[in-house]
């Protein structure tokens, strides 16, 4: 007991040094180094040198499989190119990794509260909301003009508010259809056949489920009660002429398009393993794909590489279209970069965004083949036209939107309401119109508050 006490006391004393050291460890003087909030695919923590060193250490560790090693090598190239492009513009930077989704949003909220934090923030569904609430700085005219002239509209469209651009995704995803070719073969279908319409697709899905006999299913899309669900169900709502808001920006859930989309989704959901379509976590859905238990999924461009890494033979095509509908899409996995109003180094921050759009940096996205580049110039490139990501690049010219931010003070509450009712409409036997009407009523009530 005595010895234990002594050890604890000594450790506490050591912590005191940490206390003092933290105070003394003020930021070093020197050229301004902007802090950039980054995500996990093309970012890292610390200065470019530190990020590269970390990745190099992973590589030298020899524990990585071929895929991971290739990804790591690519990351080193990417950070090197980005650092050079920033350097040319006289910008020094360091990355900050705050995670993703809920936890990232919380920390960004905290940064706005304290009016201090990184000079550039990154995020997905929360960023358009930040733009609308005035937390982000509009792009300066020169940069905005350059973006409009050189970048595909889908990359910045969701971040446009009242004619100003507040952010841009430099390697955005859009939804496409993926399938496990093996399961199509087992069901006696042509593994390369891409369904063109909803009816055709549903027919194929049902054939696969019948052939699977409980072992595997046709699948469809994840539709859980969260943004992972609405990001993938959203395109179907829009294709059928439905959506989330009307032209005035008011809540608009109970419309015929949504009814049609949800009815179709319900049919798809019957062709999935129990509980996988609308689980709280997406994990169950992707595990089902990885274990060869579902044929079709809707997802962003990374799914091909993820599937191939597990040895699944994957086919892909643009999303099927409903009879009488038209193609539409929602960005997914799009990392929008924006500059918060509190930022101390706004000028450098916008220069950094320019560096993200530099050809040398964008070329690396082409090289990785996982996320499409956003510069329009690639459309003229014949070599690029045949590549996998050209499908996505092409889609970004079309009717692509982000998820909306609702009017009033209760955006998150209205989303909670929508997500819960969406899942209910798709996986229960309730009357879809009645469920949509309930969602509409609650949505209007909260919108008015």
């Amino acid at each position, binding site marked *: 007991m005595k010895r234990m006490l002594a050890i604890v006391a000594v450790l506490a004393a050591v912590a005191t040094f940490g206390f003092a050291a933290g105070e003394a460890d003020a930021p070093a003087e020197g050229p301004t180094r902007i802090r950039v909030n980054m995500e996990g695919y093309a970012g890292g923590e610390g200065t470019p040198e530190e990020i590269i060193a970390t990745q190099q250490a992973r590589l030298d560790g020899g524990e990585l499989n071929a895929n991971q090693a290739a990804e790591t090598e690519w990351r080193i190239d990417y950070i090197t190119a980005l650092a050079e492009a920033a350097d040319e513009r006289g910008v020094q930077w360091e990355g900050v990794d705050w995670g993703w989704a*809920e936890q990232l*949003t*919380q920390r960004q*909220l905290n940064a*706005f*509260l304290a*009016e201090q934090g990184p000079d550039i923030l990154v995020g997905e569904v929360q960023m358009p909301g930040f733009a609308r*609430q*005035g*937390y982000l700085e509009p792009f300066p005219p020169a940069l905005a003009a350059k973006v409009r002239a050189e970048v595909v509209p889908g990359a910045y469209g969701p971040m446009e508010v009242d004619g100003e651009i507040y952010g841009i995704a430099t390697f955005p995803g859009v939804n496409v259809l993926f399938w496990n070719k093996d399961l199509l073969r087992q069901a006696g279908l042509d593994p390369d056949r891409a369904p063109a319409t909803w009816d055709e697709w549903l027919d194929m899905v049902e054939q696969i489920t019948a052939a699977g006999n409980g072992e595997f299913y046709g699948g469809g899309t994840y539709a*859980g*009660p*969260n943004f992972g669900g609405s990001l993938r169900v959203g395109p179907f709502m829009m294709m059928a002429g439905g959506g989330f808001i009307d032209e005035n920006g008011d809540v608009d859930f109970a419309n015929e398009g949504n009814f049609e989309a949800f009815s179709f989704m319900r049919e798809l959901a019957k062709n999935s*393993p*129990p*509980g*996988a379509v*609308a*689980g*709280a*976590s997406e*994990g*169950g*859905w992707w*595990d*089902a794909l990885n*274990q060869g*238990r579902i044929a079709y999924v809707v997802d962003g461009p990374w799914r091909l590489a993820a599937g191939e890494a597990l040895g699944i033979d994957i086919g892909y095509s643009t999303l099927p279209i409903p009879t009488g509908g038209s193609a539409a899409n929602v960005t997914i996995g799009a990392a929008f970069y924006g500059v918060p*109003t509190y930022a101390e180094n706004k000028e450098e921050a916008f220069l950094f965004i320019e560096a993200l759009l530099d050809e040398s940096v964008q070329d690396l996205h082409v090289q990785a083949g996982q996320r499409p580049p956003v510069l329009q110039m690639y459309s003229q490139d014949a070599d690029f036209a045949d590549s996998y990501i050209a499908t996505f690049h092409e889609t970004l010219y079309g009717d692509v939107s982000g998820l909306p931010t609702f009017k009033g*003070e*209760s*955006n*998150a*509450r209205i*989303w*909670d*309401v929508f997500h*819960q*009712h969406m*899942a*209910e409409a798709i*996986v*229960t036997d309730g009357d879809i119109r009645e469920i949509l009407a309930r969602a509409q009523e*609650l949505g209007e009530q909260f919108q008015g*508050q």
Partner: protein
Amino acid sequence: MEQATTVAEGVRAGKALSLSKKENRLAWMLIGPILLYFALFQGFPIVFGLGIGFTNWVGVTSRPTFAGLRNFVRFFQDPIYLGTLWNAFYIGALVMFFNVTIGFAGAYLLNTPMKGKTLIRSIWYLPAVTAPVATTQIFLMFIDPSSGIANRALQLVGLEPIAWGYSTFWMVTWIVAYSSWRGIGGAMILWLAGLQSIDPAFYEAADIDGASGWQKLIYVTLPSLRNITTFVLITGFTGALQIFEPVLFISQAGPFGTTDVIVHRVFRDFYGDFNFGMAGAGALVITLIIFVFSLTTLRWYQVKEQ
């Protein structure tokens, strides 16, 4: 025993006398810095956090304005807030019921000399020391529709797999299961401490009177545990009403919002909508409920005591 009586008398007598100035100064010298630290680092955020319930404050960059009771009116008119309150009540009651009863049963079985007692006691308590952020992930993995062993086990005994995530009943069951898994040990230890503090002479007296096991449980054991019962009830209720991490990490309020509990709602108002006013109001409602329950329980305890 005698000693305690004289001390108690001394205290009672002391009240009549004026406070000793020296003692007063000494006490404040010792406790003053602690209270100062507490007021600054722990008290201030509480007052701040509860005060914002009376303001209209939405959005991090806006300034608060006084709103009076508006937020509370809204709270009690809104079916969703009232629903979350009800959810917290019944999920909390279930968790508390299992923790208290199973905890008591465990303590009762363990409160005799037996081999392996320490080991069993440790295993019961073990989940309580684990980190929720880590162990909720294990439960989440269990009910995964594809790689979860819960459905696997059903299939092994020839049953149909269950879509856990679509059923309110099953989701509540899993939240209660996790909370009890982590909470029973704590309740058991408290009961055990209480049981061990009962004077064996009482049991000997009951034995002489020829009491049966059940009679001893009802007439000797339970009445002697009133202290610890009060403590278990109050801490149990306070904890159960604030169930949050299992909902956040396991069910995410699903399916279809049926496991949304009040603290989760407050959290969503805070970090989802930046609606500090409503979050403060919700927090104040929980606080008041906990106060009323605790005071009622204490009152019951005092009445019984007399």
